[in-house]
């Protein structure tokens, strides 16, 4: 039975940032029905960005990053229990404790978990960690407190680099092993990767690029690691920072378009079934969702960004309680930030959706700059280093499919305005030029408009 849009039973699976914000938004929009949140972790929703920063530095205890609840939710919380299945016909979520939760509408917000070390026996050694949950952060911070002789960080993406930064700030010896040519290359490409490498080394990181860890050694306790170049090191702690895995296994028999890349949904957060038919009662949002973005040629994006989790949660919640014509698309321009080695890095757009990059403001030498990314002659992303205040300008260029390279004229343009290859991995990207732009400043006024070819 479908209830009225503002009535009935809504179940949210996933009780983290996305789940909480969606629940708040549902109530804000006048949803008066029953609301249930299911979460695998026993604690109430908490914030993750501090885990790899303040928590590892010992400045904030792991249990103290709880998210503020901004309004009364009048919700049922089922925490500490995992969802194991979804019956889309009978409209029930199956839980690990055998219970079943019926729903009229469902929001899937199960997010991601840290990718484990591929060899279970090695991964089980005492001293091998991953960092995704509050609990993982607490245990790792305790071990860093104990003063290890050396920490090995496997993977130099944002999480790995932030962990290495925290370790150096604590004065610990750190080795970072990165398969690619430099840290952050997977997300930001070669130019900023080279800057990151220089900074890590200047901060005393033993950075090893172009190598993989072939074995973690130890007998019960981690003692060291071997690398693909034949070298080895002694280490008491290894942090596996090889990215995240989307929590979709519980949906394997649900008939939804759910797999390792996430739960595919439309721009209004409605999940597709396995035949590509949109559902009208099952929604997805946050890290687990995979959605088409018009600015990036309608490629299905899945974003592990704090801001995306919030924005998409709000769109999903709005659409769950509003009739079709009032529904909104999720058209947020992706954005994220990181702090590491004294740098504040902020990104708008999708830097990997690029073929060229230009330093539009500042300089690499001063480690204070804005790098602008372009794909086939249009601006698709901008990344600032210690220089976040003009990012809004570039966001507007991205939204309006402005030509790349951007016109010169910035007051602090120092380096050569000539673009260089962006060196993002695997540029197996699609065809045709800028056709779509975003308009409007308010969520309910945002539109895509077809741009005349420039």
């Amino acid at each position: 039975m479908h209830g009225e849009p503002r009535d009935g039973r809504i179940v949210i699976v996933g009780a983290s940032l996305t789940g909480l914000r969606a629940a708040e938004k549902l109530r804000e929009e006048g949803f008066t029905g029953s609301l249930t949140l299911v979460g695998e972790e026993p604690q109430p929703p908490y914030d993750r960005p501090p885990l790899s920063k303040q928590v590892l530095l010992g400045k904030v205890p792991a249990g103290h990053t709880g998210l503020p609840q901004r309004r009364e939710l009048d919700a049922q919380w089922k925490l500490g229990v995992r969802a194991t299945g979804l019956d889309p016909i009978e409209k029930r979520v199956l839980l690990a404790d055998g219970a079943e939760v019926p729903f009229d509408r469902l929001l899937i917000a199960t997010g991601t978990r840290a990718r484990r070390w591929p060899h279970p026996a090695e991964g089980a050694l005492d001293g091998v960690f991953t960092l995704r949950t509050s609990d993982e952060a607490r245990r790792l911070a305790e071990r860093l407190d104990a003063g290890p002789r050396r920490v090995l960080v496997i993977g130099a993406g944002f999480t790995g680099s932030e962990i290495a930064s925290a370790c150096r700030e604590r004065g610990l010896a750190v080795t970072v092993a990165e398969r690619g040519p430099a840290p952050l290359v997977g997300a930001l490409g070669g130019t900023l990767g080279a800057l990151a490498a220089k900074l890590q080394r200047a901060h005393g990181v033993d950075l090893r690029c172009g190598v993989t860890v072939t074995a973690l050694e130890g007998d019960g306790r981690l003692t060291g690691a071997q690398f693909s170049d034949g070298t080895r090191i002694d280490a008491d702690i290894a942090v596996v920072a090889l990215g995240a895995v989307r929590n979709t296994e519980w949906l394997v028999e649900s008939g939804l378009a759910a797999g390792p890349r996430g739960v595919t949904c439309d721009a209004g957060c409605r999940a597709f079934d396995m035949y590509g038919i949109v559902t009208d009662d099952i929604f997805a949002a946050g890290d687990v969702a995979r959605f088409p973005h018009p600015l990036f040629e309608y490629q299905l994006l899945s974003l592990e960004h704090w801001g995306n989790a919030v924005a998409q949660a709000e769109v999903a919640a709005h659409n769950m309680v509003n009739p079709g014509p009032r529904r909104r698309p999720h058209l947020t321009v992706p954005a994220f930030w990181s702090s590491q080695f004294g740098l504040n890095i902020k990104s708008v757009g999708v830097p990997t959706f690029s073929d060229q990059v230009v330093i539009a403001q500042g300089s690499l030498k001063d480690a204070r700059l804005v790098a602008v990314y372009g794909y086939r002659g249009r601006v698709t992303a901008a990344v600032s280093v210690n220089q976040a205040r003009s990012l809004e300008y570039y966001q507007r260029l991205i939204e309006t499919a402005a030509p790349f390279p951007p016109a010169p004229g910035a007051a602090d343009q120092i380096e050569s305005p000539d673009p260089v290859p962006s060196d993002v991995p695997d540029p197996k990207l699609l065809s045709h030029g800028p056709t779509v732009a975003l308009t409007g400043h308010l969520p309910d006024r945002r539109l895509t408009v077809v741009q005349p070819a420039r």
Partner: protein
Amino acid sequence: MAADTLFQRITDYAHRADPYPLFAELREHRVARQEDGSYLVGTYHEIEALLHDPRVSSDRRNRTAPDETEAGDAGLPPAFIGLDDPEHHRLRNLAMRSFGPPHTPGRINAMHGEISRIVKDLLAGLEGKKRIDIVDDFAYPLPVTVICRLLGVPIEDEPRFRQWSDAIVTGIDPNPKEDPAERQRAAAEARKTMALYLGDLAEKRREHPSDDMLSAFAAGDDTDGRLTPLEIMATSVLLLIAGHETTVNLITNGMLTLLRHPDQLARLRSDPTLMPRAVEELLRYEPPVQMLPQRTPLADIEVAGVTIPKGAPLILMLASGNRDPERFHDPDRFDPLREDIQHLGFGSGIHSCFGAPLARLEAQIALNALLQHLDTPRLPEDPPPYRRSPVLRGPRHLLVERG
């Protein structure tokens, strides 16, 4: 007689008490070219975009037509408010080091007790007076005392630098109907005198450092470089003026607004915890800095379909953007409980107000204390007489009678 341009009417003193109808007219144009070749922008989203546009300079020297302000200023470099990155960033960062995060994150909050004591002393001086002038008796002496303590300037010298400060503020007033040369010469002279005075104080602090900003400028650590003596002068002139010419208007505009909305005044008096949000609404509704008159595009920039040419004077009308109905619901209504309140009162972008945390704290403490102190306040004169400046707008006097 030729009709006045919009900007002439905005700067005309006759409209000082209520410029908001003119701002509504400005927003209809979105971008309004004036006869003298300057451009006014008064809509929220356009102002916001220009404040974040790296092609918009704050350095008057980038204007195509030479700006007389600089000519009189021989010997003193522009303060960071009139410079672009990377020079702006270097100077602002060095100045910020002894004021805010990351080096001194607790400095402003730690002044809570001191500001409260100054407020208490000022109010104690008003005991028994039936009629007070909010400006002279309270809103002016408070920020002056605070900025003097923070910078390390003897409060006894207030009459001297008040004169200089008046001349400097008069110098920045745009008045398209009048030849600015004489005012600007006087402003330059005052700025130089004030700079020498502050440079001299800083020099004394180098020998005998104390817990103030001048000491930090003169004798602080130099891990990230340090300010030269000339930069210390330019920076401290800016901080001394900005530190007291703006907050006085925030407090006074705030009190006037509350007196005009007795129901809101009563509500805030009964719940002082609402004051931080009310101050944000005041910064939207009656911002002390009404416009940024010194921007200049470094390239031809298109704004709302109009191309503003490189080198043209560009004036951003913050107070107009704050009342833009495309951005704020029912913008002419003063609503201290407003939730959607991302105002332009402190500007935005790289030049966003350095002293914002201090201004907020002073205004919150001051207004709460005034509401508690004044029972049944009455406004004998509305509108009150205004200060001359259309840039830093606020009443010259605000008389209040109590029952």
